[in-house]
């Protein structure tokens, strides 16, 4: 597998036009899903996907085959999204503030509060409203299926931080899907 990746990258570096399209076709779908959930909208996700592949095109020379090309692109995508989100810090801070209030408003419950059949639309919207930090950990864990130790490596945080961010996201989703508003 790695040999195939290296050969493909080698072709890209030597100007083989079809090779980069092959890279795009093979990985765009998975990366788009990741980016869509992290960004929260199709418009932002498409812009981010384009930026990620432009970045990949520029940085292919640094790919050494230590990991698979898919993993390398995945890390590139996560890091690029985080960079973009950090640059929107002020906006995100306002969103976090608002959602923290929602979390505080969550009442104790003795029976389930989330509808048994959660609509896809409601869930997508609620995920998009999560603060960027916990949304990233949640998307990587609950949507993408990464383990906490893998997320810790991807994000450069401790495993405990990954766990607490996923827990925070789940509790906020519960509050939002239960219709609890500040």
């Amino acid at each position, binding site marked *: 597998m790695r040999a195939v990746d290296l050969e493909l990258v080698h072709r890209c570096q030597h100007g083989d*036009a079809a090779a980069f*399209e092959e890279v795009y076709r093979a990985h765009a779908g998975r990366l788009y*899903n990741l980016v869509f959930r992290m960004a929260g909208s199709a418009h932002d996700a*498409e812009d981010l996907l384009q930026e990620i592949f432009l970045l990949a*095109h520029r940085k292919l020379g640094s790919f050494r085959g230590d990991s698979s090309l898919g993993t390398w692109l995945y890390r590139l995508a996560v890091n690029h999204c985080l960079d973009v989100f950090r640059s929107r810090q002020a906006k995100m801070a306002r969103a976090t503030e608002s959602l923290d209030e929602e979390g505080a408003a969550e009442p104790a419950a*003795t029976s389930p509060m989330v509808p048994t059949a959660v609509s896809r639309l409601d869930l997508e919207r609620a995920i998009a409203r999560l603060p960027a930090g916990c949304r990233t950990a949640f998307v990587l864990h*609950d949507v993408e299926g990464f383990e906490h130790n893998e997320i810790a490596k991807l994000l450069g945080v401790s495993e405990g931080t990954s766990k607490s961010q996923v827990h925070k996201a789940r509790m906020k989703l519960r509050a939002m899907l239960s219709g609890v508003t500040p």
Partner: protein
Amino acid sequence: MTCQEYDVQIDDYVDGVLPEPLRIECEAHLSACTSCRALTTDLQTIRQATRELEPHVPSPQVWYRLAAAIDAGPRGFSTAWLGGWQRAVIGSVTCAVLIAGLSWVGGRLAPIAREHDRVASIASTTGGDSAPIDAAEFSAVEQQYTAAIAGLEDITRDQRATLDMNTADVLTANLKVIDSAIGESRAALDREPDNSVAQDSLFEALRDKLALLQDTVAIISAMRQTNADGTAPVDTGSNQ
């Protein structure tokens, strides 16, 4: 086990990764604590729904824009980067959009834009985005969208063979996702006709569908033009 002790384990319990002895302890606590049981049920519901989320598919335009950006960049590949028809598509999409804008399609879209601006203006003067719009206004805008979408769907259905298989498949997948969102928004509005969030959601989904179909018609127009000029076959499959 106390509620505080269970709270520390709840995520691992929901994820099914607790070792057996601890899992049994948690289940003993859950059988006696209605509050923790309710919370656990909610988190399990959310986890299950999250795992069942449908995948999203990027539109074909992302690749076209990306290829054009690389082509234009300092380290870009040569124009051999794309097949002949793809180069022609990128070059002529803007023209095609303009042509479409002057045609029947444009005639149908302009009133929608005006109508939607008017409704947006009404919404802003009656309490902002969160205020539901009047039922008659809502119905009028929705009908305009629906009519324009129907017209564009007719064109894309008739001319589908013009698209290469990959683009056609992506179009189908994207339309399926958008139609699903439209269906959910309409179902929500059936339950709560004055729900402004559902109204916004429906308009957003209709706008997405309209934009996707507009892009598709633009590509079809450009490819038909390219084909007429004899510069490239239209069904090369070189996008694979």
